[in-house]
């Protein structure tokens, strides 16, 4: 079972070894993590209360949509990975 700790480790790996561990490798770990969550957690929301320099984008997503959002929203991807890698 892929845990949130695995996702955090993958975030650190991506930042430290971007040539051997790609963004897509990271998103696959996120997919495995999301798929291992019970239904109510997959439907739950992860968000921030941020207004990025006038760009009015809602930064709140359902966890089951995280892989898709990470692929499509570069800004959210960068914020999330930075947050996960800090811990």
């Amino acid at each position, binding site marked *: 079972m892929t*845990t*949130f*700790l695995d996702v*955090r480790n993958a975030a650190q790996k991506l930042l430290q070894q971007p040539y051997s561990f790609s963004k897509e490798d990271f998103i696959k770990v996120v997919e495995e993590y999301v798929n291992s969550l019970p239904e*109510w*957690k997959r*439907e*739950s*929301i*992860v*968000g*921030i*209360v*941020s*207004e*990025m*320099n006038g760009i*009015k984008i*809602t*930064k*709140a997503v359902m*966890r089951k949509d995280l892989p898709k959002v990470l692929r499509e929203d570069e800004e959210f991807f960068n*914020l999330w990975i930075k*947050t*996960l890698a*800090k*811990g």
Partner: protein
Amino acid sequence: MAPYYEIATYIWSPYLRGWVSRELEKRGIMPILLWGPGAVKTKYIEAIKDKDVKGTLGVGHGNNDVFTGQNYEPIINVGDKITDDYKRQCIAPVSCLVGKKLMPWLVEQGVQCSVGEVTEYWFTAEKIIQNGDDPEEDKLLKYYMYAEYVFWYRLAEGFTAGEAYRMMIREYYRQAKLAESIDEETAYYVRYDADNRKFFGDDKFRLIEGIETQIQYNVITQRNAQDRFDSIIINGKVIAQSGVPTGKIYIEVNDQNKEVSLNNDGSFTATFIFDWDKNVEKTYQITLIYKGDLSNKFLPKLEETEVKIEPTYIPTKIEITDIKTSRDASVVTFNITGKLTDVKGNQIKNKTVEVYVGDGKLYEETAKTDDNGVFSVTIEKSYPVLQTKATVIARFNGDDVYQHSETSKIAKFPPNWEVIRTIATAITIVATAIAIILSLL
């Protein structure tokens, strides 16, 4: 400030209208709610003209320079004219990044105090709800709610902003711990938010006025190594600028807590006992919260401290009470008996002691003390013909409760008479032979 126009605000704002407003009212603070379309700058400026407004809380998207309301409309911007209506206040919104520039800037302009996140404020939520009457409605968001609004509830109860902030941050970490078993991702964000939630300005700021109080206290610590527990006795007194404070004091030491009524002179005492497995240094976080007695105008007070208790080892005494020796040719047998006690004379049972017979190479035996602390060993060792004494050493190496101890004694034993007699006989024979030879010459 409760904008209501997209997912984050749909999730958070109902609790501001419901649970947070109700809890503030219970504490005698009547909030002005700027809800949905009302969460805009013109309404905000109008609301804070009321001289009784001493704080701004709420949720809204933000960045380094701006805290926004409905539809991302800026409510407070770096560079705004900061009037006395702002300067009366403590401003502490839940918003990303405002702690980086906007909140410290407001304090520089004369705002009493502020709290803001220096990074993004992350949250998790189970669902969008309508009423927000009870944080328990959301299995994930509740951890953020219970932590964040400690700041405002404690301010409403009369604590200073600095005290309220410290209690809030502590609650964030406590909630993060609680969240671990439910959702490790939530626990991570709650801890992350706490790490990055910063206070600026006057930590003595209060929402309500009254008689200032102080907690004077002593902490007496003791380690009982024998029975493996630490005791912490906290005694003290709550004093005030005028009058004798009444009410209760809440005392927390690590994961234990007690609420104690103050005596007639404001004094109090509480004892905490902590069992332990290993005799190692332990740190105890102590929090004392005088809850105040606002009906008598006594303001609450928070004190925090930390004590460390070092490992303590019970001194021991090892004795050699008897040594019996016998010799068979070159082999000397030592029957050694001794006793292990602590410094008070209590027998120490079931401990391993080492016994050595010295001189040159050491001969060692180990033995366990019996129920009376007594040990006995037998050691056999060969000695030169004429040697008649040896050093016997008994040693207890100590353990995680008892200290090391050691003693020694000289053991006496006969020489090797058999060899001496043989040599004497030989000498006699040789002497006799020499005498005979000499007489014949």
